[in-house]
C-alpha cells in the first residue's frame, strides 16, 4: 500500500532519471543541485528561470538578424549563439547545447538555410525542456505539500 508521498517520490525519481537518459539533462544539472541548500533553497529554479529568459532573448535576437535576408549579421548571430551555448552548458541543458554547437557551425560557415533550420530546432528544444522542468518542479512542490522530502536521485 503506497502512501501518496511514496508514489510522488517514485514519480519524481523516475521522471528525473528519464530526463537524463533521454539526453535532456546532463551531469552539470546534477552539479547545480549540489549548490542548492537551506541558504539557497530555490537556486536551481532561479538559475533555470534565468536560462530560459536568456533563451528567449537570444533566440529572438538571432531570428531578427536572420530575418534581414541578404544582409544577415552573422557576427551577431555568432555571439548570441556563443552566449547561449555557454549558459546551456552551465545549466546542464544537453540537447540545447548540442544544437547550439551545430548552429554555431552553420553561422561560422555563413550557411543561411542551416542557421534558420537550426535556430528553429533550438527554439523547439528549449521550450520542450522548459515544459519538462516545469513538470519536475511541480512534482517537487506536490511532494513538499504532501509533507514529504524530495528524494536524492543518483543517476
Amino acid at each position, binding site marked *: 500500500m503506497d502512501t501518496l508521498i511514496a508514489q510522488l517520490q517514485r514519480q519524481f525519481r523516475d521522471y528525473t532519471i528519464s530526463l537524463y537518459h533521454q539526453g535532456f539533462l546532463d551531469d552539470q544539472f546534477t*552539479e547545480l543541485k549540489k549548490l542548492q541548500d537551506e541558504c539557497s533553497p530555490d537556486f536551481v529554479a532561479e538559475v533555470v528561470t534565468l536560462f530560459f529568459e536568456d533563451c528567449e532573448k537570444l533566440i529572438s535576437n538571432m531570428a531578427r538578424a536572420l530575418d534581414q535576408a541578404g544582409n544577415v549579421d552573422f557576427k551577431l548571430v555568432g555571439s548570441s549563439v556563443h552566449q547561449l551555448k555557454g*549558459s546551456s552548458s552551465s545549466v546542464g541543458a544537453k540537447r540545447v547545447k548540442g544544437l547550439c554547437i551545430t548552429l554555431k557551425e552553420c553561422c561560422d560557415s555563413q550557411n543561411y538555410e542551416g542557421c534558420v533550420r537550426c535556430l528553429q530546432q533550438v527554439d523547439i528544444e528549449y521550450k520542450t525542456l522548459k515544459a519538462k522542468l516545469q513538470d519536475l518542479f511541480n512534482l517537487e512542490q506536490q511532494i513538499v505539500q504532501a509533507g514529504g522530502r524530495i528524494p536524492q536521485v543518483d543517476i
Partner: protein
Amino acid sequence: MGMAAESQFHVLAVDDSLFDRKLIERLLQKSSCQVTTVDSGSKALEFLGLRQGIDSNDPNALSTAPVNHQVVEVNLIITDYCMPGMTGYDLLKKVKESSAFRDIPVVIMSSENVPARISRCLEEGAEEFFLKPVRLADLNKLKPHMMKTKLKNQKLEEIETTSKVENGVPTAVVEPEIKDSTQVEIEILPLQEDLLLIKEEEQTLSTNNKRKSVEEGISTDRARPRFDGIATAV
C-alpha cells in the same frame, strides 16, 4: 584595522553574464567564501581602488585614494576571459602591473578551450585557468592561493600594530619589501602543510612575474613533481 581577523576569504568575481555571475557566486558561497560580483573589468578595478588615470606604479597613488575608502581585502579575483571592453586578460595584466594588488591571485574562466589563450594567461600571472562550467571541485584548488594573501595581510597588520606600539605615534602601513626567494613549495604542497610553511616563511614581493619564477623552478599544476630538497636561488 581590528585584530578580529575575518576567517572568511573574500573573492571578487567578474563576469558580464548575469547567469554566470549567479552561478559563480553560489559556487563561492558554497565554498564558504564571501563574494562580491561585478559585471566588468573596469568595475573590478574600481572596487579594488585602482581607477583609470591613476598611475598604478605611482607610490603616491594609494594616498590619493579617498581617505574614507575602506581598505578592501580581496583574497582572490576570478574573472571571465571574454568580456566586452576590458577582457579578463586585460584585467589580469592591470592587476599584475599594480604594485598594490599584484599579489592577489587571479583566476581566469573561459567557455573555450584554447591552449594559446590558457598559456598566455598563465604566463601573465594567472594562478589557474578554469574551463566553464566551473564546478565545486575546481574551487577547492583555490584555497591554498587565497590562504597566501590572507596570511600575508595578517602579517602586515601585525607589523603595523607592532610599529605603532613601538613609536607611540601612528605610522603608515608598511609594506615590507622582502627580497627573499619565493618559496615555491607553497604552490604544490597539500593544504595542511601549506599553513605551516606559510606561517613560517616570508613572502616575496618581487617585481618579477611570480608565475614565471614558479615555472622556472617547477612545472605547472598539470604535472607537479615535488620540489624537495632543491635549494632555491637566494
